């Protein structure tokens, strides 16, 4: 972040946007390799016996099995070679075999990713909407009672243990009040819509299955609500600060001096000006959402990365956990690259020299 247009210009005199994007892409790819080094290191170098963990105690006591495993996985090779093998395996979709499901981790995860991304995207939209509304309100009414209330509300949002909130709200809205649908992505009576995007809501709409769409949406409500509480708190506080700063900016004063007010000033001038810092924090908020899914999905039996991580962690399935770490790292990097792209779109100083 924080690239000045001037720094970008040096890289490509003709089209600064291309230079900017190449730079960001380069950073992302480097970080991606960093992520694989971390997961590789954790899976292979930490104390403890990864072989025993991979084979299970029984098989690990048989020297022949262990030897065969070491040969097969190339564990007798020097570490750099092992890392290269690991990377080339990753490129072929080899993330190891889950100890828990006995399936390749990659195929397990490929089913789980859309479920989680669907939740996370909806949650970020909800959080952004509520956060921008509350944050702007607080900034406009700075120091007033409503500002204080928003402050307390957002601090409480930041203090709620998500996994507990998931449990409590599931208990209350489903088991007690029976107004929320049960766990999972769809009611048991419905079949998943034909896969296009992997998002049930979108796929159901594409297939014209209205009932499936509403059912899928209803199942999304509670997990999205629980996940959003923290990010709403985060975004509200941040939007308030950014909007306050922009309200002080000369260009907003100039807008006022032109006789602009109300929504025209708020959306056209204030929020547009605050959009860049807010965008940065949205990328960050996405990280906390992905973190949150690990703690929330299990409660709702939502078949995503979070549930997979929870089940892998509780059954000490190291390949499964590493796979989740890697995939979430990649998803997070992708999101942040998308944020960088949007940055270029929203800021003409980045887009045009």
């Amino acid at each position, binding site marked *: 972040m924080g690239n000045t247009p001037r720094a970008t210009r040096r890289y490509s005199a003709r089209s600064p946007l291309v230079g900017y994007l190449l730079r960001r892409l380069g950073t992302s790819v480097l970080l991606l390799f960093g992520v694989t080094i971390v997961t590789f290191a954790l899976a292979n170098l930490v104390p403890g016996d990864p072989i025993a963990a991979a084979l299970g105690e029984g098989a690990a006591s048989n020297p022949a099995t262990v030897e065969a495993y070491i040969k097969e996985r190339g564990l007798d090779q020097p570490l750099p070679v092992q890392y290269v093998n690991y990377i080339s395996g990753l490129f072929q979709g080899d993330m190891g075999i889950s100890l828990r499901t006995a399936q390749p981790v990659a195929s397990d995860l490929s089913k789980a990713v859309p479920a989680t991304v669907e939740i996370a995207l909806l949650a970020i939209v909800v959080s952004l909407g509520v956060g921008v509304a509350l944050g702007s309100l607080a900034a406009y009414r700075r120091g007033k009672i409503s500002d204080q209330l928003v402050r307390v509300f957002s*601090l409480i949002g930041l203090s709620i243990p998500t996994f507990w909130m998931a449990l409590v709200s599931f208990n209350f809205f489903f088991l007690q009040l029976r107004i929320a649908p049960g766990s999972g992505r769809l009611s048991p009576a419905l079949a998943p819509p034909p896969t296009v995007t992997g998002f049930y809501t979108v796929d159901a709409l594409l297939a014209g299955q209205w009932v499936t769409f509403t059912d899928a949406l209803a199942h999304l409500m509670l997990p999205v609500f629980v996940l959003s509480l923290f990010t709403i708190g985060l975004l509200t506080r941040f939007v308030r600060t950014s909007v306050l700063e922009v309200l002080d900016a000369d260009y907003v004063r100039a807008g006022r001096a032109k006789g602009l007010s109300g929504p025209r000033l708020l959306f056209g001038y204030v929020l547009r000006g605050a959009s860049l810092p807010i965008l940065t924090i949205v990328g960050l908020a996405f990280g906390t959402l992905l*973190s949150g899914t690990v703690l929330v999905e299990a409660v709702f039996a939502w078949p995503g990365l979070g549930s997979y991580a929870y089940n892998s962690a509780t059954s000490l399935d190291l390949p499964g956990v590493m796979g*989740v770490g890697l995939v979430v790292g990649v998803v997070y990097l992708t999101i942040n690259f998308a944020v960088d792209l949007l940055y270029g779109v929203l800021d003409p100083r980045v887009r045009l020299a």
Partner: protein
Amino acid sequence: MRKRWLKIPAAWITPLGVIGAVIAVAWVGIAFTARLWVPFDPLAQDLPRLQAPGIDTLMGTDALGRDIFSRLMTGAGVTIPLALMLVVMSLLVGTLIGAIAGYFGKWVDELLMRLTDLVMAFPTVILAMVVAAALGPSLFNAVIAAFVVSWPQYARMTRSIVLGLRTQNYVMAGRLMGFSPFKTLRVDIAPNVVGPILVLASLDVGTAILLLSGLSFLGLGAQPPTPEWGSMISAAIQNFDSWWIGLFPGLAILTVVMAFNFVGDSLRDIFDPTSQVSRAGARS
């Protein structure tokens, strides 16, 4: 006569900060004394199982016949001291690394900051989970994992402050006078870092508690029968109908995290002048 050290500037006393401080102090008090006064042994499994809250068991009993109130109170003694320790550890290490990076610059800075980039390329809970799983499930390993993910923010903040200060005249003057790097860091730079770091740390106590209890919820932290809040909540998943098993530990986490957040947020108002500066009279 009022003693000078008791005087607190009026601006520091905000309703939010006071409420937070009172709750936080109360919880810390409970954390260190609970074992002395709880009505039941938190580990003893000799009460009726899954008993709803009542007169003798204020918050009911769990599936193993343990008193939840007693476990909750002694549980404070598990989570809170660990969280405080974690924050102090991250603060010391992170601040030192950040100061070194900012002060020496060049390849030292580059190396250390790429390291923080790497840690921050993961969402925190995910990386902590991966590290904790790799190290093996235990409360100690959970603290290590939480430490791995939480020091970089201190390093980042300290570095940026130090970078800003390094070129200031009085810091340059100190260096010209022959201050050693560490004297410069200690005398000229440290005082400027204290405020922002204190704000970050007080807000981070809440994050640390959420992280540690989250890892325990995942089974990667405290192991049974330790009375830890996160693992108490995870036990509630198996007993959905007994709402009290999960409700109270969660409220405990919520109140203590909220208290530290209230304090941290009020401290921010004090130390960060930009968040408070009156728009009135900013220009004349």
